[in-house]
């Protein structure tokens, strides 16, 4: 995104500055999110008791995540008994290599994908395309982002930042279709391209919303039907899924599916909620011959090892915390520079990719608590951001900063020296114009958006003393009664 992006923090800062000033883009995002809010409020109000439902969802996820080993093994046993295969990947590379090898071994040529944030996480598409496979994203929003060559803007609404005329121009340029400003016509253009992709593909790759332990199933939630087709038509199905996505029982979904829909999009239930327990079974008409589930760790166990923040793994990726976040609304999804944007992304990314490089995300919050309030599984999101700030501060601060604080305390402990220093403050004001706007400007980040105040002539103590002297003079003259 950014031109000077070396460090994640620099990229974040420069993208935040740019997007916060892009008023039309922000207006589009706000409009989309206000539609969401209306729908969510309406559906949420039909619940008899949202709070209890939420406490129960949190309790079930707590049970699942705190006995993760047991449930993953239970899933594996049930799933493999029905002909499925489970592969356990420690990191991105291991997961990618497994899928690449599988594709090679089976003589796969073209691949259709339904939405999987885990795929973004391990950069699966790039790897597959590099090896010569045709890979098509089938979720409309993901398809648009793929054509645009851009990562998703929001992990539930991938192209929410684009206006229809931008999408029309994109289709015109990439597909040669006529321009239109009808969302319906744009959707039909994609529909026609994608229907061929399902029929032609010999491998379908999906993510998964839930790993159901007791029946050995993967549950996938979607609105379009693209995932149904992705795992229905090709002869091989690969589901790439994070190890934390477990629920103990199939019946638990009776709670989670309506809550995911309500929090995620404001629907009673998302268009298609499908549970897949193995490849095509004897006597069935169709379905893949092979079904591989790839369990992805990729540092999830690092977060698991932190009892204080373990509940961040309860996340069902509904996206609600992004939708209500004042920071997300202003800086947008790409600024985060992460696979998972918004408040929950700011909590988990430092665990996944290292606190030192990603601690700045903990500051991308007003601590208003809207995220915590809205989360359907009751994750203490904004407190976790505070925990990350605390943990970052406990790490050794940068050398420059240390020096600055040392100098400050040296000065503050020596009144005479301090008085001397304040005498020279106006001098700084005089010298500042010489460096203003250059890389040498020590207060550049302040002056980029505001005026730097001029240092007053004389300190408070000097002025107070002068004032007292003048008053004494007046009394002496009898001017004051």
């Amino acid at each position, binding site marked *: 995104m950014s031109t000077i992006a070396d460090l994640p923090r620099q990229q974040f800062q420069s993208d935040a500055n740019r997007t916060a000033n892009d008023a039309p883009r922000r207006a589009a995002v706000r409009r989309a999110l206000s539609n969401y809010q209306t729908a969510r409020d309406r559906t949420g109000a*039909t619940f*008899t008791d949202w709070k*209890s*439902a*939420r406490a*129960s969802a949190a309790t079930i996820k*707590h049970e699942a995540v705190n006995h*993760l*080993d047991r449930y993953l*093994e239970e899933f594996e046993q049930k799933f493999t008994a*029905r002909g499925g295969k*489970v592969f*356990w*990947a420690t990191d991105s590379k*291991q997961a990618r290599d497994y899928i690449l090898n599988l594709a090679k071994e089976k003589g796969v040529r073209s691949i259709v994908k339904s939405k999987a944030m885990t795929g973004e996480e391990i950069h699966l598409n790039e790897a597959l395309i590099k090896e010569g496979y045709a890979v098509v994203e089938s*979720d*409309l929003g993901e398809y648009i982002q793929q054509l645009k060559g851009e990562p998703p803007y929001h992990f539930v*609404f991938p*192209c*929410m930042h684009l206006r*229809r005329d931008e*999408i029309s121009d994109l289709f015109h340029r990439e597909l040669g279709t006529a321009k239109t400003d009808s*969302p319906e016509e744009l*959707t039909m253009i994609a*529909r026609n391209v994608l229907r061929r992709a*399902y029929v032609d593909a010999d491998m379908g790759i999906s993510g998964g919303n839930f790993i159901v332990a007791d029946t050995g*199933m993967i549950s996938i939630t979607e*609105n*379009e*039907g*693209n995932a*149904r*087709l992705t*795992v*229905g*038509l090709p002869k091989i199905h690969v589901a790439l899924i994070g*190890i934390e996505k477990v629920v103990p*029982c199939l*019946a638990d979904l*009776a*709670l989670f599916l309506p809550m995911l829909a309500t929090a995620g*999009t404001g629907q*009673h*239930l*998302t*268009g*298609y909620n*499908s*549970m*897949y*327990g193995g490849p095509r*079974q004897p006597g*069935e*008409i169709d*379905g893949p011959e092979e079904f591989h589930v790839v369990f992805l*760790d990729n540092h999830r*166990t690092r977060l698991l*090892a932190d009892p204080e923040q373990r509940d961040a793994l309860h996340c069902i990726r509904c996206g609600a915390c992004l939708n209500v976040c004042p920071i997300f609304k202003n800086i947008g999804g790409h600024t985060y520079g992460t696979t998972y944007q918004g408040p929950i992304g700011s909590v988990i990314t430092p665990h996944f990719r290292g606190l030192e490089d990603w601690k700045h995300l903990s500051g991308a919050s007003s601590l208003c608590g809207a995220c915590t309030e809205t989360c359907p599984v*009751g994750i*203490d999101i904004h407190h976790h951001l505070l925990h990350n700030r605390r943990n970052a501060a406990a790490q050794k601060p940068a050398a420059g900063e240390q020096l600055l604080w040392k100098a400050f305390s040296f000065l503050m402990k020596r009144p005479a020296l301090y008085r001397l220093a304040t005498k020279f403050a106006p001098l700084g004001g005089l010298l500042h114009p010489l460096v203003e706007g250059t890389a040498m400007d020590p207060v550049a980040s302040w002056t980029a958006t505001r005026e730097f105040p001029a240092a007053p002539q004389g300190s408070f103590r000097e002025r107070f003393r002068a004032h007292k002297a003048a008053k004494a003079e007046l009394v002496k003259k009898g001017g004051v009664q």
Partner: protein
Amino acid sequence: MNQNRGDREAILGRVREALREEAPLKHPAERSAGGEPTTAHFREWLPPVGASIDERFALFAKLSESLRTELHLCADMAEVSAFIKKLAEEGNWKTIALHTGELISPLILELPPQLSPLLLQSGYDKDELEACDAGLTECDLLVAQTGSVCVTSKSAGGRVLSVLPPHHIVVARKSQLVTDLTEAYASLATKYRDAYPSMISFITGPSRTGDIERILVLGAHGPKRLTVLLLPS
């Protein structure tokens, strides 16, 4: 066959190591007398449905309307046949894909002569199915609380028939209507026991997307229209 299970032991080891210290339970849920929260409780918190079959049906009809599922009551099989014939004429259909079943099989003979059936039995040609104008299936259940049609790879002619053709028609009986997802899962468990079909899918309205400016468009991939023809119990 590939027997490689990857880092199974290492990952399970890391999980067990990580879990040695317990995490606090921040949201203790309501529990029934001394027990774990049970799925029966979900009903007390989720949107209410009503106890009687009439209330259930009224809610299913109301949700169908807002989801743009076309729900029609049919007095008997003859009416179902007539309705399909009418849809076929209006849509100028040439082929309809379907599977055999208690409710569907009798309909095959009654199809209008200009409409040729593609009967899915074992394998089928993907291109042929893709070119069909409609798909006709049965289902396992209808869910009042969410306005959903529950199909499985066993009840609805496999995985794809209910989602590839642009118009999906479901024939069902009113007795298949259950209260909520909790009842649906319980009923599936009784019906299939340990031999679940490889796919269970709750279909809630025709295929839809809001990806462009969050504006609703029907028929993103699969069915642009979903019709439920409901027979008496």
